[in-house]
């Protein structure tokens, strides 16, 4: 290693350290932005150093430079445009697409490395084992994330899609991937093995995500995020680049933690979600469950009076609010109430949005200060002091049946909405939630039901509260 390369190696090390520090600064909303800037600066240094290294070794042809520069420009422009124009409700799609391109790039690196090797037959297991893993994980992530993004965007139907023999295909494709991997390791020069492996992995990504329902998306996105990180780390093994290994491992850890948190919050195992093939679509349940006769239906005016007389209101936003894109209406209602002297805070369940933490971003977008956004552990002790708990488009995460053993959601962590002094639920119908269970909260004498779409209902409520306090 000459001096220049040594310097660049140390710069890479510094960049990796800055990624860790940047993630560390994410532990508070106050410092998070600085952390992101630090991480971005480190990335810029690492990429700049690579350019210097390549130029110094003059290893790269003129065509190579052209490819590098044009690819960089095209990718940067696309990323910049997408990141600037995306709506906050569409954030899960964007993260999915970025997972896809990350996994895709990792797979392409190994494809390039093997196809362009002067004598691929000489590649040892040291390269081919992580290489095969990289191609499998990267390609599965690529196609799987695109399907997930399509489901979230509504291009692919959000309901679980199960075709005849889907389970058999889902079982056969991983076996095919394993067989091709072994083939590639035994015969590194075989282009057929490499291409078949890529094709099988791409197909598996599609058949793996298609049967998963819209409500399970938070888990799927987190899992694919972990996959992308792992694929990048595997590319680092093949290329002998510790920086790629470190960055990939960090992302893999992050995705892994989020996957676990999401699965716990939904009271389901990761395996059950992947092989499951059931769950709700974006439209939500349409069937009218029993017990509609025992509930107390409220009008917008009834709810407005209840809210205006309250000292403290805890809002419980759920998946339905995100699906109806009603966060602006909610923000406006909260502003009217706060101007009237009502204390408003938000109790947010981990799976409230369509990806981890999504609801917080939606509420931050409508200028709700993060000090009012309460995580489940902090929100639950506050419910007994709340005059009104306003539940919008949330069902299972408020179901007190979770505290009793012997049903589908037993043991699932819930928000203790039933402990509030009174409860108002905004909901389209008495339909069941994801778990397909009756929610005793709705028949509680303290509870009033306001049957409306979240967006329309909140707009009506705001108008009613305004007229009432004027």
């Amino acid at each position, binding site marked *: 290693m000459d001096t220049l390369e040594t310097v660049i190696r140390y710069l890479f090390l510094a960049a990796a350290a800055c990624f860790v520090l940047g993630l560390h600064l994410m532990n508070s909303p106050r410092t998070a932005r600085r952390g992101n800037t630090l991480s971005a600066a480190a990335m810029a240094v690492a990429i700049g150093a690579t350019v210097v290294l390549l130029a110094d070794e003059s290893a790269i042809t003129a065509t190579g430079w052209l490819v590098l520069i044009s690819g*960089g420009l095209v990718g940067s422009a696309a*990323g910049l445009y997408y990141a600037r124009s995306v709506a906050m409700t569409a954030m899960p799609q964007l993260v999915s697409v970025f997972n896809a391109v990350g996994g895709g790039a990792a797979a*392409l*690196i190994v494809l*390039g490395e093997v196809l362009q090797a002067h004598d691929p037959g000489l590649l040892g297991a040291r390269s081919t084992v992580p290489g095969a893993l990289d191609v499998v994980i990267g390609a599965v992530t690529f196609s799987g994330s695109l399907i997930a993004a399509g489901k979230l965007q509504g291009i692919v139907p959000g309901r679980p899609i199960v075709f005849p023999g889907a389970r058999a295909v889902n079982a056969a494709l991983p076996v095919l991937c394993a067989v091709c991997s072994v083939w590639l390791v035994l015969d590194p020069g075989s282009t057929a093995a490499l291409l078949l492996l890529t094709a099988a992995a791409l197909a598996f990504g599609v058949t793996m995500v298609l049967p998963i329902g819209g409500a399970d998306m938070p888990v799927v996105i987190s899992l694919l995020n972990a996959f992308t990180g792992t694929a990048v780390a595997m590319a680092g093994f093949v290329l002998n680049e510790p920086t790629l290994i470190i960055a990939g491992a960090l992302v893999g850890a992050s995705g892994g933690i989020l996957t676990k948190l999401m699965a716990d919050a939904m009271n389901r195992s990761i395996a059950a979600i992947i092989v499951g093939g059931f769950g709700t679509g974006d439209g939500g349940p349409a069937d009218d469950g029993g017990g509609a006769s025992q509930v107390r239906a409220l009008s917008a005016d009834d709810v407005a009076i209840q809210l205006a007389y309250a000292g403290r209101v805890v809002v419980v936003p759920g998946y339905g609010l995100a699906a109806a894109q009603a966060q602006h209406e909610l923000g406006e209602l909260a502003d009217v109430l706060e101007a009237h002297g009502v204390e408003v805070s938000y109790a947010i369940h981990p799976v409230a949005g369509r990806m981890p933490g999504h609801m917080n971003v939606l509420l931050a977008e409508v200028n709700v200060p993060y000090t009012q956004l309460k995580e489940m552990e902090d929100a639950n002790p506050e419910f007994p002091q709340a005059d009104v708990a306003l539940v919008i488009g949330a069902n299972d995460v408020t179901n007190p049946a979770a505290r009793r053993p012997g049903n589908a959601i037993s043991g699932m962590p819930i928000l203790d909405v039933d402990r509030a002094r009174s409860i108002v639920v905004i909901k389209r119908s008495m339909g069941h939630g994801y778990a397909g269970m009756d929610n005793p909260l709705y028949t509680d004498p303290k509870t009033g039901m306001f049957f409306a779409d979240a967006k329309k209902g909140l707009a009506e409520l705001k108008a009613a509260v305004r007229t009432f306090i004027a």
Partner: protein
Amino acid sequence: MNLDLLTAITVFVLAVLVGFEVISKVPATLHTPLMSGANSIHGIVAIGAMIIAAEAHNAIGYILAFVAVAFGAMNVVGGYVVTDRMLHMFRSRPGGAAGPAAGQPAGRKTEA
């Protein structure tokens, strides 16, 4: 650079453990920016893509390198920009520059 397998695995395992330690302290409020931030960090594949571009010597190699570099650059630029955009929205008190709260009286009560 030569990196023997044991060293590579050591680096990988320790980085995963550091990742678990650091990321488990990120509050649920910031999980979405954390994910998009993670997206930009795995944009480091751009470096790998550049190395591939250097090794390419025929049309297939150049095409693979072009797509890989474009994907990596999209991850890096898009990831950091969107994360910054989101984090910019998180504020500790209401009444920012824009938005529905702007027209409200400033001195109203909020939770500390």
